[in-house]
């Protein structure tokens, strides 16, 4: 079922394709240019709001990253590299993440696109915003990793948080989205969900048991998979999990990292998805009608990367595109068939057996059960009282009114938080952490339930 066409904004910079990581390096920014050429030649360009984004400034990038690290990225060049050897080791630059010509600019463009996209969604000028230059999910606060130097996704999410209470991050790259997960590991305003290959594979994180920490506990979800996952398996997992996540977390904005190394035949990947299977994830998240930010990511068989991303751009604008590729600037790259959609590798066994998938789903739903909607009791039950001693924190009173069926509620967690700066004997300190960002249950609860059931029906229709 389709709604009226969503307004889609698209961010691209003509310099981007000319950055080059180095001889033999699998990451090729050129793939974004190829994607752009397909978008133009399929006639999708005219259906988009097209922007050349302002590049991100040092201040914007250091909203997440440490000053030292970004200053280093800015200052190091292939000419002065020898005077930076200790910093290179400290910031993990030089091997997977080599120093290359224009590296800092490259980061500025990648981040600029994602920031511009997020700002667009914040101003409600678009329903979907796309930045194929972004999605570099491995970069850490003070460390480059997995071909990523600056984490445009974290920056975009921080921007979205200015206008959206809760933001959901979904990662369908074949590699675990560790950079984004780490950044928001202790936050309950951002939920990170990653589907990835796990087991003797980069980056080594993303275990099913990793669910977040502190306030962010249960706000990280990991779906570890084995080699050869196919369209059907992936669809089943994705829809089952995301349906539940959306119902429980109820984000106000969604960021979807569309790493294309989960496609069949990727130079570094080990999955067996087709463009259809990959695109289904975009289709599905679009159907929730929540502001959506699409970013790129991995993808090392560049003809397939561009196929995937142009197809997903078409999905965003509700356009059908022919399987015969249009003539474009890089037409000859698409031998031998010159088709849009790719086929799975027949010889690659799907090691994700039905039993494994069943078990995984059970565990995931178990993890998700811990994501409770806030109980009906207000967190400040005695806010109106003028009794200074009792203040807002009479534990016994709250316990009396608490819903016994809700275990480990936000209140229970808060009670156990020690305020390390103060010691007290009789008077309990005013706890700072009682506000929950969870959606508070309210009289609208029945309305929400009705909406959820309807969503459930719609999604059921969509899978048929």
């Amino acid at each position: 079922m389709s709604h009226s066409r969503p307004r889609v904004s698209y961010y691209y910079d003509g310099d981007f394709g000319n950055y080059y990581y180095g001889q033999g390096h699998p990451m090729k920014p050129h793939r974004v240019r190829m994607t752009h050429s397909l978008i133009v030649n399929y006639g999708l360009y005219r259906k988009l709001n097209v922007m050349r984004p302002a590049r991100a400034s040092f201040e914007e990038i250091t909203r997440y990253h440490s000053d030292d690290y970004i200053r280093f990225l800015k200052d190091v060049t292939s000419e002065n590299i020898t005077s930076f050897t200790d910093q290179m080791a400290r910031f993990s630059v030089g091997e997977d993440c080599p120093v290359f010509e224009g590296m800092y600019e490259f980061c500025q463009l990648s981040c600029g696109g994602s920031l511009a996209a997020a700002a667009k969604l914040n101003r409600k000028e678009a329903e979907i915003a796309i930045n194929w230059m972004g999605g570099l999910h491995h970069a850490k606060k003070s460390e480059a990793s997995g071909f990523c130097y600056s984490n445009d996704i974290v920056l975009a999410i921080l921007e979205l948080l200015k206008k959206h209470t809760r933001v959901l991050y979904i990662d369908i790259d074949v590699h675990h989205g560790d950079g984004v997960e780490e950044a928001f590991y202790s936050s309950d305003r951002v939920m990170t969900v990653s589907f990835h290959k796990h087991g003797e594979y980069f980056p080594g994180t993303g275990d099913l048991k990793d669910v977040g920490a502190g306030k962010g506990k249960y706000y990280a979800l990991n779906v570890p998979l084995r080699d050869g996952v196919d369209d059907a398996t992936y669809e089943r997992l994705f829809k089952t999990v995301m349906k539940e996540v959306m119902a429980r977390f109820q984000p106000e904005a969604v960021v979807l990292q569309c790493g294309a190394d989960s496609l069949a035949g990727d130079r570094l990947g080990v999955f067996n998805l087709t463009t259809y299977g990959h695109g289904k994830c975009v289709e599905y998240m679009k159907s929730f009608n929540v502001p959506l930010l699409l970013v790129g990511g991995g993808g090392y068989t560049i003809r397939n990367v561009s196929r995937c991303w142009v197809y997903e751009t078409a999905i965003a604008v509700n356009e059908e595109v022919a399987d015969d590729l249009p003539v474009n600037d890089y037409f000859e790259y698409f031998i031998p068939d010159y088709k849009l959609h790719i086929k799975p590798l027949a010889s690659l066994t799907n090691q994700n057996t039905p039993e494994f998938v069943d078990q995984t789903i059970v565990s995931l739903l178990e993890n998700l059960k811990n994501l409770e909607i806030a109980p009906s009791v207000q967190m400040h039950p005695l806010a109106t009282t003028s009794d200074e001693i009792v203040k807002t924190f009479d534990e016994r009173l709250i316990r009396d009114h608490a819903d016994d069926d809700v275990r480990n509620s936000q209140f229970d967690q808060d009670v156990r938080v020690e305020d390390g700066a103060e010691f007290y004997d009789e008077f309990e300190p005013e706890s700072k952490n009682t506000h929950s960002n969870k959606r508070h249950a309210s009289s609208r609860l029945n309305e929400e339930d009705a909406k959820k059931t309807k969503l459930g029906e719609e999604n059921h229709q969509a899978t048929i």
Partner: protein
Amino acid sequence: MDEEISRSSLTDEEDYVEDNDNGEDYEATIEEEEQLDAGDYADELKDLEDEGEMSLEELQRKYGYPVPGETNQCEDEDEEEEEEEEYVEEEQVESSSALKESFDATILDMGNSLTGLDEDDEDYAPPPDPWKRQIRIDAVQFQAAVPDVESSFAETDTEREEDTILWVIDQPNQPSDEILNVYLKDVVELRKAHEQSVPPEGCETRDDEDALCALYRNNFDTEKAKSSFPFPHINAPFRTVRPDALGFDEAEHRIFEESLELYGKDFSLIRRLRLPYRKVGELVEYYYQWKLTASYRTWREAHPQHASVVQPHLSAAFQQQIAQMDAEYHGPTSFATVSFTEPSTSSDNNYRTWREAHPQHASVVQPHLSAAFQQQIAQMDGEYNGPTSFATVSFTEPSTSSDNKSATVIN
């Protein structure tokens, strides 16, 4: 127990360390506990091993028991601790670099052999699952600072530098597809008249970015837009290339191919040694264009060592599968070997002949257009007799014959 009682006293303030787990028990199973302490695991193993090998006196010394004949007990203990600490540190550094090496090997296909693990480490027992990593938790070092909702919403919008708008949709005066296509065809005529490059036959209504931007900037007034021709090349690269850079001429093309042979795709090096007035981005840009030409094909055949690289991280079984598939498949596998019709020495004819042989790729550009409009296009094509594809038009100087150019130069 003693700790709890004394907690309320101020003197114990320094001893109290706030946990960030809200007092909850993470480690429900041994597995989980192991996971949490994965870093310390190696230390424990090493300590246990060492202790097994220590003499009785050493053990006694370590645990503070009086050893007969010992005078300076304390000093020795300290020394031993220091040594152990040093050893443990070395161990950790080595294990992390060993991890790094194994990661590099699985990710990067740079053709470098593994530098090899240190030979002295034969006795070293690796921790379980060396490929496993942990998410690091530290509010200052690793996590992002996420403000609470009130603070977030109270933040003033930072003024970003403005994005350059190139095209918009959903405007009240938005032109229809039909109007756009007529406009685009008109632009193609303008380009031809000015001997600029034009899209191939049947693709006249492709989304010409420059033309669309000009239209947007003239408030969708097609006449005004056309009168502003020639259009600036919007979204052109300007950081990675010099804006006034000329296309590669024959001499440069030769240098380029020779350099590739000598240095491989190290464009930084090639620039420095052979084409110093160029920017690296210009070489990269040229490289991706050059790959589409026939001279690339010839070059690849002459240099098989630059053939596509394998995926070392995949299992041997999978490699076998791929090899089998390759053996069974007899069609073209890379554009070094594909020819558009038959192998030909002339590059210029191939594309044209191929296009005639594969008409389905000509008219797929705008499948959404109405049949009537498609007919119009077909009619216009029937009437037109000039050059119709970029295989016949040169991009820089006006030329009657395109056969002179061996390499297509792209602006």
